[in-house]
């Protein structure tokens, strides 16, 4: 049997198709994008005839493109919102549900419903919710006692992207809640019983048992939320449009326009490659950041 499981032909037959698929469609194009990013290339001519600019496109990202910097700021808003609002909120819900409460299963199912709806649809829904004339938000404020309240949430540059971020955070609270819920449930009851003997219950037990032991799961949530924030595209396109005023731009929209509409293929490729580096780098940094608390968690 072992001989059969180390037969080279058998292994090749099982692995090669997937590997070729993945290399051909994901990895090779990734490097081609990296290569294009070094040229002043419009996508129409042969790349060999394009002007080589080296790091020029990357320098332009940070010195000659204020809209791109705005899009990075917006990405940062999404990351901060999800790490410091969405995940803590999800934790509070998960922690409360995991302790057991009447209707636990129903709450879990309800909190998760927005997650299964396409972000494109959520974006359109929130476009109407924040609409100045027919929107739910203005109507609620009016109903709460400000009869003439009228505010244009999505065209005001100060609030437009915050509304998008609100919708994105709202949609995925349930996702993180489910992950954290399972993490908490998998902590052995012995710890909590021992804690009760030592006099630690409620908030104390949460602080000294649940949170430290949950570190690896929280790390997963933070990585998922961060990479997801960097990739954000659909919800912005459907909620405020891809060509709208620059205050709501995100990198994914800008690079798409450069690649497919603006004939700035070299520059768009630099933006795309930069996003890949950001995703890998942030994932690595998060892993480093959590390393110590994960080691502590595994000592138990």
């Amino acid at each position, binding site marked *: 049997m072992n001989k059969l499981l180390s037969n080279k032909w058998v292994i090749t037959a099982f692995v090669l*198709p997937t590997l070729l698929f993945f290399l051909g469609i994901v990895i090779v194009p990734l490097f081609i994008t990296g290569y294009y990013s070094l040229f002043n290339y419009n996508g129409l001519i042969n790349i060999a005839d394009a002007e080589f600019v080296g790091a020029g496109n990357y320098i332009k990202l940070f010195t000659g493109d204020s809209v791109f910097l705005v899009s990075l700021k917006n990405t940062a808003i999404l990351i901060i919102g999800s790490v410091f609002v969405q995940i803590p909120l999800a934790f509070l819900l998960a922690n409360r549900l995991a302790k057991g409460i009447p209707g636990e299963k129903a709450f879990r199912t309800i909190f998760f419903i927005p997650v299964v709806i396409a972000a494109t649809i959520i974006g359109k829904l929130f476009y109407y919710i924040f609409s100045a004339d027919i929107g739910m938000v203005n109507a609620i404020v009016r109903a709460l006692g400000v009869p003439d309240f009228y505010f244009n949430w999505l065209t005001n540059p100060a609030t437009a992207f915050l509304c998008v971020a609100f919708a994105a955070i709202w949609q995925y609270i349930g996702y993180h809640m489910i992950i954290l819920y*399972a993490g908490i449930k998998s902590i052995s009851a012995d710890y909590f019983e021992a804690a009760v003997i030592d006099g630690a219950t409620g908030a104390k037990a949460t602080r000294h048992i649940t949170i430290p032991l949950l570190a690896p799961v929280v790390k997963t949530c933070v990585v998922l939320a961060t990479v997801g924030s960097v990739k954000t595209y659909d919800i912005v396109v459907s909620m405020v449009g891809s060509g709208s005023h620059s205050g709501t731009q995100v990198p994914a929209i800008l690079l798409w326009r450069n690649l497919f509409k603006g004939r700035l293929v070299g520059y768009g490729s630099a933006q795309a490659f930069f996003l890949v580096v950001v995703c890998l780098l942030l994932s690595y940094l998060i892993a480093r950041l959590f390393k110590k608390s994960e080691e502590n968690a595994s000592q138990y």
Partner: protein
Amino acid sequence: MNKRKIKTIITVIGLSLFALVQLFPLYWLFMFSLKSNTDILLSDNVLGWPTVFQWENYATVFSRSTIPMYFLNSIIYSGATVLLAGLLTAMTAYAIARMKWKLSGAVFMLFVVGLMIPVHAALLPLYQVLYSTGLRSVPYLGLILVYVAFAIPMSVMILTSFFKVLPRELEEAAVIDGCSIFGAFWKIMLPLIMPGFATASIFTVMGTWNDLLLVQTYVDVNSLKTITVGVLDFVGVHSRKLGLIGAGLVAATVPVIIIYILFSERIQKSLLQGAIKG
């Protein structure tokens, strides 16, 4: 009433308020979809019930709109991607979990890192390849291949973790009985990892069904686009019939919610396995 009971009641009220925050926008959309334009534009009825229920909005969506067609397309793309990605990654995951070869760890790492790579990085070169090979003009196929490739990393990771916990005696017995390794894989192992297959498929479907970027990039022909583009298109075409737009959004959402509620335990469990094991 004792103190504990009061505390529980307060907690349930708090959680219910949060449930309201999650559900109210969807309820509001449903009411929106049943209103006439005058009802919607009449600003003091934004939160209220429709004065007259406009069920014909739904009749229009189902009989005279492109929403059902886009919906069907989404089913075709997702179904084909699930089958193709499932089969490919099951074989690879089996090789990673069970077979002995030097590069096993490296290949697995490749997929782990692949999970972090945003699809944007491959957009243009893939476009050029699909264009120059003519795959772009073959209905469905080009986009399905791209969906499959991006579904591979998660699926390999999930299925590998499922294969690792299966007892080795099973396929050994099958091989001793005269089965080939392919036969043992197909007849013994595949049926046993069906739960893993379900888990991986849920991730694949969520990625494929919700995609907007790739379908916008690679499909020109309207009749081959999916529900996400369809919804945006529908909103654009009917921008003056607000209730109808609402009905289109609800119609595109309700089947997904029904499937979710039917399989909610399975889906929630799958997401966990994906997140924790992955």
